[in-house]
């Protein structure tokens, strides 16, 4: 069988593209904006996430830490050496309580000593010194770096001598903050940083001494320059847990739950935006290609009458589609790169962060591939429709339906729909594939596709019902309506006007845009809470029972305190048994047995600030009253997992000489940002009545007043240790604010791109209107009247699409937020605003698109016929 050569087919395809550049510009633009949103959002969020995760790592100063209070066994040492041989870097951090004294006065003071290797520590972040300097330069075997409250208490200055153990050290600098301060154990006494050699020479580290040992680990960077993956960290974590059963291994994500939750939410939101960009781009392409092929009906009919088979014509338009997809894809990738390149400069001036940007060739290829693939997939149905275009079209304008018997009709319908159904399935498969590539997860791809099908089906159905209802209304009221309104509404049912498809596409677009907006709104609101400026930044350790009221009063009236102080009672205890199994027989996961001997209990009547009940139920007033006889306990969920607890488990605690069984009532999750966040076992007050208590406290002080308050506390309560995390909290807050900016920017970008795509889809339908305008004009309709008719048509389209889209956006966002554990509520104001805006934009776009047609003289168009 003879067939059109690729050269001739390409020639015809290219010629058509050149001859109607204006129309094709819209198609290419739709693809380009979709691809740009995809590569831009994806590429940018990737680089930004890397940068932010780097910040998150600096809170731990490493990728992973293993905490133990035992010296590693020879076998463990060997295992650690093996791990280091693979390129993983490791540095030990030793923390212990010790006495220090000023060399001149010999005044003693309890200090919390932290020994580090200044050539390795910290792996991430920096140690802030005053005067500014590098840790490695000031921390030698003969010197120490101290917190300024030590200088205050011992009346010393930088340069003076401090005796630790049996060695004299020179105070070489003041330490303001070290990156892992939040993850260090809260110990009494001012911080003193010492080198490992210095610690050894001090003679403090006798065998069996009570030193806390932490090993920090840093993963080797992957050779291709991409960031350390979470899975690599998780792998190493699993290995370390196996290797060091007596230590507690944590990764950087666990150090600040609020921050990592914020990052996770932001990341989910960013992948959602990528997917939305993809769908919107695809909708744009599909609408543009359909309108385009509608325009080509005549040419196709001519070619068929000249003996062209459908295959040959499809070949021509397939080539054209490929060219369009490729052109749009290239333009889109360029735009996406432009966004990625331009945005950091903008952002830098706002939040002083510059993500390292590497243009990922894989992301570019993915963007290009997605562009071409979605173009191809979505043009498949109109391309297949080419087969049903009858060449008789060139002889008779309107092709009437043939008279067919029912079985004939049915078989024709099935024949036609079979290919359409397979095209539809192919599109779904393709979308699932792209979605899983975009989100780097097959299950996300699957769910996204399933969700998309569901939503599309519901949208089509809803559009269909709305249109039918409107038609019913129209048929009842027809002649009572003003003619402009009647005509405008009737236009929705114009033969060949795929109103329900357009409505579904528009509704889908509105839904996606609204989803991005609502999600962004909820996540940002949540992030703003976790970056709230009144979280405790000064922690107080070892407040005696008798000091609590005085302390509360002092903290409440002190200058610069912005929120009520949080004071937390602590009862020291140990776990004797769980569910009847003795402590040394309990099966635990990543929970060193020795830690069962130092369990801190606290009491609370209601869930403490920053904590949420994840599972089970908090105790009622009645249960609390009876808690003396029937103790209950709420356990932090991560500890519950490690101890293999379930709701209803019994934990036998021992405090002093009292032993009691408490029933696990609830698992809690804290945000890690309150004094209570350190409380892992909470009981009703009655359960702990009469046991010796000390108190911990947390308060927020404006950074400028921190040292003032520190001095006052020292003067009034010299035995209370004050831990200043203001600096560390500022870092976290800064990161969260950065996340907010990024999320808002990218959401705005996606929304803008979506609006442009939808507008061009609406504009694409204008060619269908030309003939109608001509007829109306020849029978004497004024421009104003025609514009009125169109406005009504577009306004109804916009309103219906808006209602359907906004409604489903709220439904989906509610579900998504629940999964992300972000509190959600229906945003009535925004939803209503979205609805009105959709209608207004639809009408405006309709106007702009029809403007040229309205201005044309009827004859100009009749001549073109």
């Amino acid at each position, binding site marked *: 069988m003879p067939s059109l050569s690729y050269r001739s087919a390409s020639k015809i395809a290219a010629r058509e593209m050149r001859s109607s550049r204006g129309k094709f510009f819209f198609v290419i633009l739709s693809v380009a904006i979709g691809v740009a949103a995809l590569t831009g959002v994806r590429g940018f969020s990737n680089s930004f996430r890397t940068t932010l995760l780097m910040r998150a790592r600096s809170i731990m100063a490493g990728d992973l830490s293993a905490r133990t209070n035992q010296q590693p066994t020879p076998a463990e040492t060997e295992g650690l050496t093996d791990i280091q041989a693979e390129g993983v870097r490791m540095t030990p951090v030793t923390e212990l309580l010790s006495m220090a004294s000023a060399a001149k006065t010999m005044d003693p003071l309890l200090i919390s000593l932290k020994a580090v290797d200044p050539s390795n520590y910290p792996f991430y972040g920096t140690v802030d010194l005053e005067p500014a300097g590098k840790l490695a330069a000031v921390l030698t075997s003969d010197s120490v770096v101290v917190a300024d409250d030590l200088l205050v208490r011992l009346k010393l200055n930088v340069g003076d001598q401090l005796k630790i153990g049996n060695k004299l050290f020179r105070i070489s600098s003041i330490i303001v903050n070290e990156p892992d301060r939040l993850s260090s154990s809260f110990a009494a006494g001012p911080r003193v940083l010492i080198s490992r050699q210095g610690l050894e020479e001090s003679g403090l580290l006798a065998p069996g001494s009570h030193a806390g040992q932490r090993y920090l680990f840093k993963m080797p960077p992957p050779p291709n320059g991409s960031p350390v993956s979470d899975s690599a960290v998780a792998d190493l974590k699993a290995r370390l847990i196996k290797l060091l059963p007596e230590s507690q291994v944590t990764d950087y994500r666990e150090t600040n739950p609020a921050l990592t939750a914020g990052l996770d939410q932001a990341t989910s939101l960013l992948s959602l935006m990528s997917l939305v960009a993809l769908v919107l781009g695809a909708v744009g392409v599909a609408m543009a290609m359909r309108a385009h092929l509608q325009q080509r009906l005549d040419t196709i009919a*001519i070619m068929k009458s000249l003996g062209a088979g459908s295959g040959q014509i499809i070949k021509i338009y397939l080539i054209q589609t490929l060219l369009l997809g490729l052109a749009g894809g290239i333009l889109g990738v360029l735009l996406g790169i432009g966004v990625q390149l331009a945005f950091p400069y903008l952002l830098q001036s706002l939040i002083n962060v510059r993500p390292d940007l590497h243009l990922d060739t894989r992301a570019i290829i993915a963007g290009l591939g997605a562009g071409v693939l979605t173009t191809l997939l979505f043009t498949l149905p109109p391309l297949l429709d080419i087969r049903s275009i009858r060449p008789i079209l060139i002889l008779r304008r309107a092709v009437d339906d043939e008279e067919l018997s029912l079985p004939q009709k049915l078989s024709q319908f099935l024949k036609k729909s079979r290919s359409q159904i397979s095209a539809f399935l192919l599109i779904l498969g393709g979308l699932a594939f792209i979605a899983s590539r975009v989100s780097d997860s097959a299950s996300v791809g699957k769910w996204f596709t399933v969700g998309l099908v569901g939503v599309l089906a519901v949208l089509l159905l809803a559009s269909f019902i709305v249109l039918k209802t409107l038609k019913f209304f129209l048929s009842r009221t027809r002649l009572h309506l003003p003619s402009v309104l009647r005509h405008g509404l009737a236009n929705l049912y114009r033969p060949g006007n795929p109103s329900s498809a357009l409505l579904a596409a528009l509704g889908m677009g509105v839904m996606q845009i609204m989803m991005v907006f609502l999600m962004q709104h909820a996540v940002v609101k949540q992030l703003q809470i976790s970056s709230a400026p009144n979280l405790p930044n000064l922690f107080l350790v070892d407040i005696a029972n008798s000091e609590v009221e005085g302390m509360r009063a002092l903290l409440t009236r002190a200058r610069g305190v912005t929120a009520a102080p949080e004071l937390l009672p602590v009862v020291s205890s140990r776990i004797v048994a769980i569910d009847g199994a003795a402590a040394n027989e309990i099966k635990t996961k990543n929970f060193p047995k020795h830690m069962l001997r130092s369990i801190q209990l606290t009491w609370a009547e209601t869930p403490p600030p920053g904590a949420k009940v994840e599972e089970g139920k908090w105790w009622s007033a009645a249960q609390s009253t009876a808690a003396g006889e029937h103790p209950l306990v709420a356990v932090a969920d991560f500890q519950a997992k490690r101890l293999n607890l379930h709701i209803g488990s019994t934990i036998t605690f021992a405090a002093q000489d009292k032993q009691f069984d408490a029933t696990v009532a609830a698992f809690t999750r804290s945000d890690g940002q309150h004094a209570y966040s350190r409380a892992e076992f909470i009981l009703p007050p009655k359960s702990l009545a009469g046991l010796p208590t000390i108190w911990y406290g947390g308060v927020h002080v404006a950074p400028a007043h921190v040292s003032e308050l520190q001095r006052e506390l020292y003067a009034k309560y010299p035995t209370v240790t004050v831990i200043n995390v203001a600096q560390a909290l500022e870092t976290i807050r800064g990161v969260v604010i950065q996340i907010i900016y990024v999320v808002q920017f990218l959401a705005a970008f996606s929304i803008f791109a979506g609006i442009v795509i939808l507008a061009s889809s609406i504009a694409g339908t204008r060619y269908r209107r030309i003939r109608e305008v001509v007829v109306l004009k020849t029978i004497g309709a004024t421009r104003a009247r025609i514009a009125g008719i169109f406005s009504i048509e577009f306004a109804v389209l916009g309103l219906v699409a808006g209602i359907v889209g906004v409604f489903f956006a709220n439904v989906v966002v509610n579900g998504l937020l629940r999964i992300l554990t972000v509190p959600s509520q229906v945003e009535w104001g925004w939803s209503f605003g979205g609805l009105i805006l959709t209608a207004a934009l639809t009408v405006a776009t309709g106007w702009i698109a029809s403007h040229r047609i309205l201005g044309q003289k009827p004859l100009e168009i009749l001549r073109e016929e």
Partner: protein
Amino acid sequence: MPLTQDAVTESVSEVSRQDTIQVRNLRKSIRNGTRTVDILKGIDFNVSHGQFVAIMGSSGSGKSTLLGLLAGLDTPSSGDVILDGQSISYLPEDKLAQVRGRTIGFVFQSYQLIPTLTALENVLLPHELNADSSKSDGLARARTLLTSVGLDDRLDHYPVQLSGGEQQRVALARAFVLRPPIVLADEPTGNLDTVNGAAVLELLLNLNKTEGTTLVLVTHDPVLASYADRVITLRDGLVVSDALNPTPAAL
């Protein structure tokens, strides 16, 4: 213009092996809303090789529908169209396209050139769509035909750059490029003024003669029909007269 002698003397109703077109009890109904309209109500005729037949009828008589069925652009409700011994009415779409391409040349009232192709490319298109790849003389033939219709200096012009008469001459060249046995023309001069119309008609009849094709021309213009060897008149979907024209008019 004189016509071939044997075509004139041949009996209209006699079915011979030479009959290029055979139409058998052709019916076509279409659905118009809820009503069914019978456009063709059973038509029979044969056209022998080399004959020039005019099909006449007023608007709505069914002549365009008949032309569409003759050309295989549409499928009949019942009956059959046989071209060159092959029944085409119920062929699958792609087979039908092949028949159209190889057996029929088209001339339409509104030219129907592809706007994005030049005159030469338009003429070449049927060749590219239908000819075996072994035949490489398409380009030369297209040039020759365009020269023969007087457009040798307009080869690279696009349809919009050509006048109506010129466009129709390109369409003529396109209709003959594959040497089809049958040429179907639908009001070929309908959009043209008298002078241009006469010129196009003369070219059409000339090509028909030199290429030895069978020509079926649909028109409502009796003047145009007077050039034909035979005139078939339709009314309300039936043949009301079928007469040989012993003395076709000459241009």
